[in-house]
């Protein structure tokens, strides 16, 4: 909500000309979400400070938001937007200092083009990644960065730091550059925007980033974060950056971020996607899909149901495979089912994709030759596994059931995964090979199946493969 800009270049109160705001008065500007005020706490020839204060009206803020903004409900009145230096402040800057940001100053044209000593303060800057991140983004631009984490609550030291930093930047820069950098980097550090992304966001970024972003070592990260990881926009922006500024194209080859989010089928195993120790040439998720398809081929499965199909990655492959007469998918997540339906829309072999839960017996699960539970069981609380086994093996009783699940023994090979930690925050457990075997044996005895095990992924002599697969046949 507050940004101050100080200069000590004599006569310092020329800052008023640069900003096109008179130091003797407070000026107010209506914004869609509140009022922006510009005033000068000090304005002398030695030192002049301009303050931009954004007085956010929470009710008006609510009205400018889409109904589907994630924090629509509870966060409506209790949120940091009235206090933090976020994208709201960036918008206000663009509005209030429009001319200054373009570097135009008719009364002091030389000054606008001159690098002047500047100090910028932001008392509450939301900053994912903490002070180090602020340092990473601002230092390459020539700023001396003093970023201090704001504690969450002094009375509860155990809670640690908040995501805000109190930021002071000092350096000699053109004022317009400083303003443009703040305009881009405030929402980038915050990583949340108050309005929906539109294609013209790319134009805004290109405009405000002109002259400094293309050479910034973190331009890839800045671009992705500014555009909130919307892949299409990111690609367009990086492409244009590369074209306009003749920057190396390497930013384009950054790994794509999975926009599917974690789902019940666990397609986004964070540890697996984020830096597995020996970087496999084919991602594990793909190896898994291939292993499942191979097992189904080997068993001569005709119709297949993907139980816990998630957003339909495997389902789409099953639907493309002429070996199968008919495929179905089920997932507990309504959203996942919607995505899977879209992904497989028009596929001839898809019988149905529906919402269902493995803890509830369901006639729709039956009537398939084979069922796949790929990376599903580890998302189920252990006390509920019995019910799942009864529903799948006892109730639906397909001839073939393929189950894959992480091999916990392999976790030692994931750097950055603490000992005993799991690969995904929603995993309720991860089994060793022996534990998986014990569960599988119980299932076989109770429901009359035989099982064989297939390792998936590059197997380690001691720890085994990253994924274990059981192929159950009745």
């Amino acid at each position, binding site marked *: *909500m*507050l940004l*101050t800009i100080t200069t000590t270049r004599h006569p310092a109160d020329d800052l008023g000309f640069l900003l096109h705001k008179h130091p003797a*008065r*407070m000026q107010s500007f209506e914004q869609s979400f509140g009022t922006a*005020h510009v*005033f*000068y*706490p*000090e*304005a002398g020839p030695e030192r002049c400070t301009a*303050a931009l*204060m954004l*007085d956010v009206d*929470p*009710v008006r803020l609510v009205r400018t938001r889409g109904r589907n903004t994630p924090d629509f*409900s*509870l966060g409506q*009145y*209790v*949120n*940091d937007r009235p*206090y*933090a230096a976020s994208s709201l402040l960036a918008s206000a800057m663009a509005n209030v200092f429009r001319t200054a940001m373009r570097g135009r100053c008719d009364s002091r044209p030389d000054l606008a083009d001159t690098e002047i000593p500047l100090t910028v*303060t932001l*008392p*509450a800057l*939301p900053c994912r990644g903490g002070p180090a991140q602020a340092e990473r983004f601002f230092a390459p631009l020539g700023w001396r960065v003093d970023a201090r984490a*704001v*504690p*969450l*609550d002094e009375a*509860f030291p*155990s*809670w640690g730091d*908040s*995501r*805000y930093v*109190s930021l002071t930047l000092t350096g000699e820069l053109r004022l317009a550059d400083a303003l443009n950098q703040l305009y881009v980097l405030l929402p980038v550090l915050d990583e949340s925007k108050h309005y929906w992304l539109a294609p013209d966001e790319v134009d805004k970024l290109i405009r405000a980033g002109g002259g400094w972003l293309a050479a910034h070592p973190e331009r890839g990260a800045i671009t992705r974060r500014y555009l909130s990881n919307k892949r299409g926009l990111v690609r367009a922006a990086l492409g244009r950056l590369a074209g306009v500024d003749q920057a190396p194209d390497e930013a384009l080859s950054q790994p794509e971020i999975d926009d599917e989010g974690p789902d019940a089928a666990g397609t986004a195993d964070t540890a697996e996607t984020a830096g597995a120790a020996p970087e496999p040439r084919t991602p594990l998720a793909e190896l898994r899909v291939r292993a499942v398809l191979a097992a189904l081929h080997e068993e001569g499965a005709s119709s297949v149901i993907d139980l816990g199909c998630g957003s339909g990655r495997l389902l789409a492959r099953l639907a493309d495979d002429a070996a199968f007469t008919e495929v179905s998918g089920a997932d*507990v*997540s*309504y959203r996942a089912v919607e995505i899977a339906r879209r992904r497989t829309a028009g596929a001839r072999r898809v019988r149905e994709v529906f*919402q*269902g*839960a*493995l*803890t*509830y*017996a*369901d*006639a*729709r699960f039956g009537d398939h030759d084979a069922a796949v539970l790929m990376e599903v069981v580890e*998302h189920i609380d252990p*006390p509920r596994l019995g*019910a799942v086994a*009864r*529903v799948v093996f006892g*109730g639906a009783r397909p001839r073939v059931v393929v189950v894959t699940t992480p091999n916990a023994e392999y976790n030692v090979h994931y750097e950055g995964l603490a000992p005993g930690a799991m690969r995904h925050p929603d995993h309720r457990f991860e089994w060793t090979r022996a534990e998986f075997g014990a569960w599988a044996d119980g299932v076989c005895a*109770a429901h*009359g199946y035989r099982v064989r095990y297939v390792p998936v992924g590059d197997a380690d002599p001691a720890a085994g493969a990253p994924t274990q697969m059981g192929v159950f046949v009745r």
Partner: protein
Amino acid sequence: MTRELRIPATGLVVLVGVSGSGKSHFARRHFLPSQVISSDYCRAVVSDDENDQSATGDAFALLHHIVGIRLRRGLLTVVDATNVQPRSRESLLHVAKEHDVLSAAIVLDVPPEVAAERNRTRPDRDFGDHVVPRQHRELRRGMRSLHREFKRVHVLAGDDIDTAVLVRERPWNDRRDLTGPFDVIGDVHGCRAELEDLLGDLGYEIEHDAEGRAAGAHHPGGRTAVFVGDLVDRGPDTPGVLRLAMGMVAAGDALCVSGNHEAKLLKALAGRKVRVAHGLAESLEQLAAEDAAFRDAARAFMDGLISHYVLDGGRLVVAHAGLKESYHGRTSGRVRSFALYGDTTGETDEYGLPVRYPWAREYRGAAMVVYGHTPVPDTEWINNTLCLDTGVVFGGKLSALRYPEREIVAVPARRQWYEPTRPLAAAPDARDIDDLKIDDVLDAGGVETALLGRVTVREENALAALEVMSRFAIDPRWLAYLPPTMAPAATSKEEGYLEHPAEALAAYRDAGVRRVICEEKHMGSRAITVVCRDAATAESAFGVRDGSTGALYTRTGRAFFRDPARTAAVLDRVRDAVGAAGLWDELDTGWLVLDGELLPWSVKAMDLIRGQYAATGAAARAALPAASEALARAAARGVDVGGLGERTERRAANAGLFRDAYARYCWDVDGLDGIALAPFQVLAGNGHAWATERDHVWHMEVAERLAAADASGLIRPTAWRTADLDSPDSEKAVTEWWEKCTAEGGEGMVVKPLGPLPDDRRVQPGLKCRGREYLRIIYGPDYTEPAHLDRLRARSLGRKRSLATREHALGVEALHRLVGGEPLWRRHQAVFAVLALESEPVDPRL
């Protein structure tokens, strides 16, 4: 002499006769209009013309559809069509067979001239002179096959048509007129001594014949024994068991259905070729030692046994191997086969025994089904069904169910009389499991409640609940209840307040309530505690077999603690307190469900506090003082900053108050140290839904006793007051109490009615009055600014109130289903519905 025509009371009656034979007239005289489905009527429905022959195909499709639905629903159905062709009768018989009902044909044999003459007098029947004679020829030709087609065929001619009297016969299995009380007795298998023991324990007086043998038993209290079959084979005294049971049945002291062993023994006695195994040899040998008269009597007895009984107005069904709902009261070969042998999957297990289809697991019927056939180590309710075969002949026990008391009485085997093929406890599917079906929660449409009638659950809400329930909720066996939401009192008009006791008290006074209780509202996280005395109680009362002795879960059904050991530690403390307070005995229960609040808030809500409340506070406290200072410096320079300076200063102060508001409900805990549980309602225990049987004063007093009895310091009492709504002083006293509590940082209070509730369904089960400072957490640091407060006063409470009422009805329903011993799926429906309603869009700040 009048002819008496016997027809099945609930089956299919097909009238047969040429056009003009008087079928419709006959039907009108003997049946309700709704019972008669005529082809003319169906033709009219599909074509607006009951003589439009081109509509015949569709008309009969409709007729068959209606007949099918009526038969499925167990209704007597009369088909009024010519039915002279075997083909048309065949399709009707097929429908009857599909629904396992009996059928009868009544032929009206009228001379074709008479019929033709009648048709001539009816202007709408101008279908030509050749039709009736043709129909008559077809009828004649098919007459002989009629007797093969139908169980009963009545051919009426002449005066008989007008004078015949219909006698409706109920199926033999229909003994809904018998209301008991009953003692249903499991598979005896020739264990006469144990049977005598059991009958003795059940209070029967055994009668002996001249030779001192037990030959009958009578209950002085007028109870009736019901044998589930398999009296014979394997055991030491099959003739003795038969003699006793035959005597009881003959004297009206018992009913008996046939078991598969009776059926096989009967075949053997009739000299038919059967494989002598599974203990048949013993029976044959023992019976050979009896005299021929007894053998004949035993044969006649077993031959007369029917396969199942429907008793007590349809509320109790007894069949040897159980019976699925669509077969109750039905008669057919496959019904008998199911009742005697069960439904098998066609597979066999590792011991060579048939794998039985788990029909009980899927049973959703309202009638209690009691059966035997498959030996189990212990009786166990599965979806309102009970297997009573506890393997007495294999050294287990002989069990009986007292009905309607639902009590099990069992006597141990005197010894193992027969080696089991499969170890009694080893069969994995011998212990059936009452898993839930997706149809139990989706497509259910809603839940019938005692308080509000049907509470509708919309599909999108059910789908949302399905995801939450299946991904995060604990075992549905433990999930006995989910707490309903509670509406706040009407918005206060008092300056500076959004909520105030005046409105809550006025709401109840206006509704005609005289007294209310005001309970301190704890600011923590809602926690439902299910606590059992021991693991055995957990198994018998909740069907949980993993050794756990209770559960502690949140308002969305999640385990409160991820670590089961932490849950167990809390449960230990609660259990000790319940014991020390003497509540197990006083409430005559081995388990309790408690509603309460677990403190501090930060135990469960830390992510929310960190990400939202504390974060907002931190940002505010970092930014506002800096802004305030900058404004002050500008003002000092003579810049006119208007009201902004003062306003920013006030906002800085509000930020501090906001921080204090949430911080009050946070403190560090170490293990269980620092954790407090404040129970405020004893929801249920064995046989009693205390939530509805006792008023809130009782609940508060029990909570106080629990806190006093708790040596561990876990249980925290809840402060409370009652208020007399006729007395202004009394109101003033509770208002001051609320003001004091909230000024000290309390969340506020909950006001609930005491004494008899008015009939008005809109009276809320409780109203919350939250404190002024607490509400900062909900509405933001600056909500007390007059401009904000005025805007917030426009909040609308209607949906929240409606939701609170509906969820309350569902909660009470869940408790009643729990204590009524209803099957898991019925309990779960009500609980699931609460979660589904919680996904309705309602302002979460209310």
